[in-house]
């Protein structure tokens, strides 16, 4: 595969060299700016606003970057092909502060110790759904010319289900990490929290991978130090892998305010939002199902991760007994549990009920004279955790609901 990649890079460069960028392109663009620009009406209110500071700080940032890069020493270290284990930090002589503070990753399924005073930025997103550099990583900025990062991904989600070969892991990693140019099978071995892994070292960068509990973990150290391996080993010796605590659903960062149903919630925006197009009347409308044929009254989010969220609300008719009414019209069967016997849940401070069955989680809650219905249709093992994370973002605003 390496030969293929080398050939790809070489041949693509040759193809690209066949392009002939016009030497007069800038003049063409300038002419377009003049030609295309609409007459601009400028309203001047006393002193003109100051120009953006962006070019100034960009220049400063660029200069700083150049200085940083320029000061980075190239540190090489022969890769030891012997099996190695991270040293016990208490027994290792490293010119580095003691690792005394424990950080528990909120998403990646591990914990690690770091020096007091280190700046830790927890991961906020799935590694495979990262939208910005490092948002899938937990980042420990030590301030001592060493930045330690850790992340993990579910092997099934990464398309590596049932595959443990170095080659496949290597292939997966190669799309984002180059393993210092050393195939994983040829990298030195390392043991992290009792699990065998691989480690590669190159100038200013160390990269280790280990598989545990169906997850692929990646730990890196970017540095400008003469003792990077010792520092890496010190960090690695404090790692506890807890794949069972990892979060496999994406963070929900975008807020949706329903123009129809009197609530807002957050979701992961991948273009799957479908706002309601009509009001919900559970007495007339068929029960919510997976067909998508009767989704008009529901605000829905297709996540693309085997989970579809639906939500709606309706005015409660006068004089009805809510449990019986829900059982009859909203969710006949309610996962085979009458509402009065369902587990309790609190949504935006209101007491409600929740039922779970094989492919759905559904909750009902009353607020401001309205019945709210929140539904997750899924094919996931962590549906309840995702549903709870979603529910935690819900604000009920019955006063904003559209009325018939």
């Amino acid at each position, binding site marked *: 595969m390496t030969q293929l990649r080398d*050939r790809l*890079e070489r041949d693509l460069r040759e193809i690209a060299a066949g392009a002939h960028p016009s030497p007069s392109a800038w003049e063409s663009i300038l002419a377009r*700016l*003049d030609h295309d620009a609409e*007459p601009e009406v400028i309203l001047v209110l006393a002193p003109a606003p100051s120009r953006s500071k962006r070019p100034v700080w960009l220049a400063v940032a660029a200069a700083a970057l150049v200085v940083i890069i320029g000061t980075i020493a190239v540190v090489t270290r022969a890769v030891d092909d012997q099996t190695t284990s991270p040293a016990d930090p208490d027994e290792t002589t490293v010119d580095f502060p003691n690792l005394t503070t424990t950080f528990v990753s909120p998403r990646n399924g591990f914990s690690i110790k770091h020096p007091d005073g280190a700046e830790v930025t927890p991961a906020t997103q799935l590694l495979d759904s990262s939208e910005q550099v490092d948002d899938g990583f937990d980042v420990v900025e030590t301030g001592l010319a060493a930045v330690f990062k850790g992340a993990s991904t579910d092997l099934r989600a990464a398309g590596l289900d049932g595959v443990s070969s170095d080659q496949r892991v290597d292939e997966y990693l190669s799309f984002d990490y180059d393993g210092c140019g050393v195939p994983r099978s040829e990298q030195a071995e390392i043991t992290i929290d009792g699990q065998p892994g691989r480690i590669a070292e190159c100038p200013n960068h160390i990269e280790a991978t280990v598989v545990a509990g169906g997850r692929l973990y990646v730990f890196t150290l970017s540095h400008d130090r003469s003792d990077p391996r010792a520092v890496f080993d010190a960090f690695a010796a404090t790692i506890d892998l807890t794949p069972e605590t990892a979060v496999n659903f994406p963070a929900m960062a975008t807020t949706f305010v329903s123009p129809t149903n009197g609530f807002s919630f957050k979701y992961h925006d991948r273009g799957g939002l479908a706002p309601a197009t009509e009001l919900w009347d559970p007495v007339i409308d068929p029960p919510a199902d997976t067909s998508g044929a009767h989704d008009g009254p529901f605000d829905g989010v297709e996540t693309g991760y085997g989970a579809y969220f639906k939500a709606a609300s309706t005015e409660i008719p006068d004089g009805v007994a809510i449990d019986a009414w829900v059982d009859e019209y909203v969710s006949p069967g309610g996962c085979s549990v009458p509402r009065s016997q369902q587990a309790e849940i609190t949504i935006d401070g209101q007491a409600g009920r929740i039922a779970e069955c094989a492919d759905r989680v559904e909750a009902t809650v009353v607020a401001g004279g309205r019945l709210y219905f929140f539904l997750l249709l899924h094919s996931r093992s962590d549906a309840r955790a995702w549903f709870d994370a979603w529910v935690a973002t819900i604000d009920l605003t019955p006063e904003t609901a559209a009325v018939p």
Partner: protein
Amino acid sequence: MATVSVRSGPDPATDDRVAQLDALYRIEYAGMVRLAYTLLASDAEAEEIVQDSFVEIYRRWHEILKPGAYLRCTVVSRCRSALQRRKMRALHPVEEPCVSAPASELWDVLIRLSDDQRIAVVLRYYGGYPASDIAAMLEMPAATVRSHLRRGLATLKKELEA
């Protein structure tokens, strides 16, 4: 007191957007044309797309935090649309009059990949972008990009080594 004035367009001598666009042009233009050409095999189309992208950036300059990143996303997005338009016209890329197929065995195989596979392969192995960046450019999950890369590489390996 407020005054109102009307002007007909940008004055390169006084519009700082033009100066900054010029700086971006000097850094990125040729590279973007080569990238677009590697996807489209058409000098004219590549130039047009990249120039359109610069004009768009000029218009939206104050809304854009990272002009270089925005330029790459815009160029790739426009190339992707151009490929889709070609498909809608039911014309094979190399059969278009304005398309001059590079004399390359790789190109002959590359054009047989799906558009997204081809774009992913070119961005990864010519552009050098990691899958997460490609995902942002193509507005799809990184896992999907990796899937395109895996399938694209498998096809290329099979065809080139046949």
